């Protein structure tokens, strides 16, 4: 609880406050909200930043594009992660530990290094193109780096373990006799998966999707390194506002709006889903 207050709530309050200020050539580069003038408290709230977000289509486009990229990355991660989690959960004890180890192994190297490694794979004179050229499948190298494709690859790759682990935790709890019961009552393998395993793994699917979707929306490093100039993501816009334009109030407004527009509905959805499961 204290953890959440110190590292989540307090920073957010600061950001929230800045989002109502005006840009100023000062240090810090924004006007104060509260000031004492002639013994009276003066509150200067500026809603201009939020209006600006609405007026300038860049932000709405960036939000929309972020949601789209995060959504499809989540779908791909789910499609790849579910079978992996399923196989791991059903494997024998010794094999399962090895497979889990392999899923966690990438965390031993820095995230940044791994993204740079992907540059080495994806660039025009990179590993993938070299192999494809050598085999003779393609005659000209494919341009993969600095495209949306590279961003998808990067996000799915990075967040796949976050999809697999909650799904694994869920699937490993599944009682085998439920499947036997389904089988006994006339369900084929596929039918018992669809009517028993899948519905019972919904909490795991929701948890995994949240863990991929939420950080993917605000992702900055992957689109910055792997994406092209037209890859529009809100994290990148945020970075540009803060560090290139030094417009802290607008950047704060972007952050606040993102939180309200994306995270709150997700939290609400999650609670609804949990109640459904119960």
């Amino acid at each position, binding site marked *: 609880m204290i953890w959440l207050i110190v590292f989540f709530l307090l920073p957010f309050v600061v950001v929230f406050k800045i989002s109502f200020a005006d840009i100023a050539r000062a240090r810090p580069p924004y006007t104060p909200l509260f000031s004492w003038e002639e013994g009276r408290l003066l509150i200067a709230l500026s809603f201009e930043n939020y209006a600006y977000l609405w007026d300038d289509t860049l932000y709405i486009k960036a939000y929309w594009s972020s949601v789209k990229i995060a959504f499809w990355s989540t779908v791909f991660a789910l499609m790849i992660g579910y079978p992996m989690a399923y196989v791991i959960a059903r494997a024998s004890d010794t094999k399962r530990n090895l497979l889990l180890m392999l899923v966690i192994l990438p965390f031993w190297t820095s995230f940044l290094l791994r993204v740079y490694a992907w540059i080495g794979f994806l660039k025009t004179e990179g590993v993938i193109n070299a192999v494809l050229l050598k085999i003779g499948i393609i005659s000209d190298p494919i341009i993969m780096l600095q495209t949306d494709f590279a961003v998808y690859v990067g996000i799915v790759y990075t967040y796949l373990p976050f999809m697999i682990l909650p799904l694994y935790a869920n699937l490993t709890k599944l*009682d085998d*006799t*439920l499947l*036997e*019961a*389904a*089988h*006994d*009552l*006339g*369900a*084929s393998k596929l*039918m018992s998966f669809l*009517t*028993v395993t899948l*519905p*019972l793994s919904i909490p795991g699917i929701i948890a995994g999707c949240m863990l991929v979707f939420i950080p993917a929306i605000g992702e900055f490093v992957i689109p910055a390194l792997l994406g092209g100039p037209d890859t529009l993501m809100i994290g990148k816009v945020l970075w540009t506002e803060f560090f290139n334009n030094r417009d802290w109030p607008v950047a704060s407004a972007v952050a606040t709006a993102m939180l309200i527009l994306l995270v709150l509905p997700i939290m609400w959805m999650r609670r609804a889903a949990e109640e459904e*499961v119960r």
Partner: protein
Amino acid sequence: MANPDPTTEKPWLKTDEKPFIRIRNLTKKFGDVVAVNDISLDIYENELFSLLGGSGCGKSTLLRMLAGFEIPTSGSIEIDGQDMSSVAAHARPTNMMFQSYALFPHMNVAKNVGYGLRRDGVSRGEIDTRVTEMLSLVQLDGYGARKPSQLSGGQRQRVALARALIKRPKLLLLDEPLGALDKKLREETQFELINIQETLGVTFIVVTHDQEEAMTLSSRIGVMDIGTIAQVGEPQEVYEFPQTRYVADFIGSVNMFEGRVIKDSPNAVVIHSEDAGIDLHVPHGVSCMPNQKMWFAIRPEKFEITATKPKATKNVIKGVVEDIAYLGGQSVYLVRLPGGKLVRMVRANRDRGAEKPITWEQQVYLTWAPSAGVVLSS
């Protein structure tokens, strides 16, 4: 239920009756472990057959092979004249009630019960009618919308039973159906289970480790011991005429006297027993060799206990009461024989406050009717 011809109710007594389930030389190995060892067994239509045995005797494995969850290493299973070796679990005319009930937690009671019919593509209207019918059979009318987590243990057991019966299987397999219920509920449910079985006319095979349950429920009992069937018979037969020491010991409690045959005539046998300290007279012929090692088994309730020396001269053992356990309806006496053996006897407490009750450390005499015991050779 009165029927003049006993063979219609006891098809196993008829020589020409075709068995409904025919198990032949069935063996199942898990690696080096033989779980089921060369079992052959016939079970007839409408029987309520119990497989009784301790844990690890292979009874559950046998049941799972009937359901199709385990593939036999060798041997065959035939249900209603049809060989099952190439039929997968979901296509067999059997249904199973699991020990853990295995109710689907994400479905309500009606969905659970109707699951089997939905898989068979039965129309929605018919599913609804049959689910309602089945729920009223197991006395759960109106519980359709509840989730399994909102039910008591006894109610869950009924849902599991309804779900397993709704497809009208030819054979219902029940794995410890009453194991998870408390004693009182278990007794009530036993009779209900028999009623349902008689109403529907489905053949039941019940796996249980509880001999009382097997006795109450079954038309016949198959007592299992390390992968084999030690004896098959009606409850009374298995109790009163056990064929081996294992069966005698597993069903109920028994006093076992080891001895050697000293006199063998066509209609009487005398066994000299060091355990009992006397010669045991058995009033019927036993196929045995002179001097062969034999066991005389006698149930605790077959003894008479007296404080004074009885008139009979044969089959009288003297001993000292070492312990008495008063159980209300009956009392258990543990009597120490001069040879050191402890004998257990049970007496119904017919009188309230007997004049001269038998008490601790008292010298007593144990006698029994000539045919009260069984002679066993293995």
